[in-house]
């Protein structure tokens, strides 16, 4: 691989042992996939900080890089971790598990990362610009940042993220290069009666991910009113059922004003038309139980935005959730602190909602909780629920989630 003088200096160890090892790993990955050189990246997003997902090896890696003096070379945001840093004690969490997570936080913050603790960094203050070269991990965030923002990242995994952050470099391959960002399959949604709700786009994303597998889909027939929260749900779903790293939506996403712009020859690309039956089958495949059995509602995968929290507060409208039902919303500290100055957070808490920051239901310690069937409007939660938590799942829209919660048994909790 051709290296710049700067890169040779990192490799010689002049910038410390951690940066040297990080660059060695990036070079090895690049060479495996035929990259001839590296490119500078200006931001990184770390997925490897999720102790619940990566276990002891991930903690050892982070602490080793930190102890060797690792320091991020570019602004680096952090994914959700495995505990609510402020309120984990109230969350019936195993103290040893929380302590492991605290060590993970210390290692990444010690290397200079920004404590965003969110899986939706693209909706926060550190989001990159169109065309910016970045190194992002977290499958939903990779899809969103490539597709909706039009920044450029490969589908990076744990550890690659930190190596890119410590060196400010990534291999020049894959989606960093414009010609590799063209559509490889066309998915036509013109016949679908999509409603403006996140669950409809979650179902659609889940289906498109299955159809596209690891190709870049160009999706036609998406209405102009689609919101960033709906595209967030779509991105998380498409990256759960497929290995999709980016999509185009014609007339919606910035690289795709029309089919000719994202394909040399659109008439020669495989095209699949999504029928209503396929769509309904996809929705059905996300549930393993019936709504009556739900004893918890989970919202916020990916992390809920301010708009989503406000919508839930509006729909609840001060009504109380009975005590036999858990209603949890996962969000990040940036959104939480924005809304703390209003009555939104207070009102949600008074209604019986538990608002959890920094973390994720799938990657935390749930040993203190006995809910058996959760209801959610997130396709990503629904997809991973059984395998990662052993719980059954009911996929529903937000209105159904709220009605199910309000109609459950027990005294209102005040």
């Amino acid at each position, binding site marked *: 691989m051709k290296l710049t003088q700067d890169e040779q200096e990192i490799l010689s160890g002049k910038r410390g042992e951690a940066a040297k*090892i990080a660059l*060695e*790993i990036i070079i*090895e*990955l690049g060479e*495996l*996939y035929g990259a001839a050189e590296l490119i500078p990246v200006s931001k990184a997003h770390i*997925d*490897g900080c*999720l102790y619940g*997902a*990566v*276990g*002891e*090896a*991930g903690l*050892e*890696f982070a602490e*080793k890089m930190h102890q060797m003096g690792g320091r991020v070379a570019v602004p680096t945001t952090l994914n959700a971790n495995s505990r609510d840093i402020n309120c984990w004690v109230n969350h019936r969490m195993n103290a040893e598990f929380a302590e492991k997570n605290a060590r993970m936080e210390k290692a990444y913050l010690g290397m200079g990362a920004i404590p965003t603790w969110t899986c939706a960094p693209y909706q926060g203050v550190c989001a990159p610009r169109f065309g910016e070269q970045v190194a992002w*991990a*977290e*499958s939903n965030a*990779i899809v969103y940042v490539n597709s909706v923002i039009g920044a450029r990242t*490969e*589908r*990076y*995994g*744990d*550890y*690659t*993220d930190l190596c890119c952050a410590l060196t400010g470099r990534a291999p020049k391959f*894959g989606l960093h290069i414009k010609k590799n960002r063209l559509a490889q399959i066309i998915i036509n949604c013109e016949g679908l009666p999509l409603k403006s709700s996140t669950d409809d786009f979650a179902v659609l994303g889940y289906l498109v*991910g299955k159809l596209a*597998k*690891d190709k870049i889909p160009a999706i036609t027939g998406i209405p102009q009113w689609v919101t960033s929260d709906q595209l967030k749900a779509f991105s998380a779903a498409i*990256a*759960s*059922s*497929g*290995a999709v790293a980016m999509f185009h939506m014609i007339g919606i996403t910035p690289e795709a004003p029309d089919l000719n712009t994202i394909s040399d020859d659109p008439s020669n690309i495989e095209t699949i038309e999504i029928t209503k039956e396929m769509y309904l089958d996809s929705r059905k495949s996300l549930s393993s139980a019936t709504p009556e059995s739900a004893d918890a509602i989970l919202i916020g995968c990916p992390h809920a935005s301010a708009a989503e929290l406000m919508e839930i507060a509006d729909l609840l409208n001060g009504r109380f959730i009975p005590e036999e039902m858990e209603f949890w919303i996962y969000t990040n500290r940036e959104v939480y602190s924005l809304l703390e100055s209003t009555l939104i957070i207070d009102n949600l808490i008074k209604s019986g909602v538990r608002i959890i920051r920094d973390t994720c239901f*799938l990657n935390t310690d749930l040993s203190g909780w006995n809910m058996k069937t959760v209801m959610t409007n997130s396709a990503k939660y629904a*997809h*991973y629920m*059984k*395998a*990662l938590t052993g719980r059954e799942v009911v996929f529903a829209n937000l209105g159904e989630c709220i009605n199910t919660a309000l109609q459950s048994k027990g005294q209102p909790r005040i």
Partner: protein
Amino acid sequence: MKTIIKGKSLVGGSTEGTLIVSHEPFSFFGGFSFKTGSIVDTRSDVYQEVLKGKIFAFPCGKGSSSTAGVLLEALRKGIAPRAIININSEKILAIGSIVAEKMYGLNLPIISISEDDYQLLKTGLFLRINNEIIEVM
């Protein structure tokens, strides 16, 4: 009669073992548990299989970028498969193997083979792997 498959060695190495073949995209995160060592995705066609000591084939990856993390932890605990065979090997997978070599000196060969050759793979076959060469015994 022995069959020889020549693939592309992404991460080199020699090993042998009994094959477990899936015909669906696979994610180690949410697909494999490093607590139990088995496949936990109930939708998978290899659900409940234990991967330790086996050679694991699946056509391509899908899902979370934590696949690298899950794989590294499985390698550290000694419950990972001995090698992985794909049609299309994702970078998310490769990095797990690269970091395992750097951190723990552990080798997990990863080989990509053609779609046609993939059809020759059947669960229960015994394979011997030497870099890009797969011997089906």
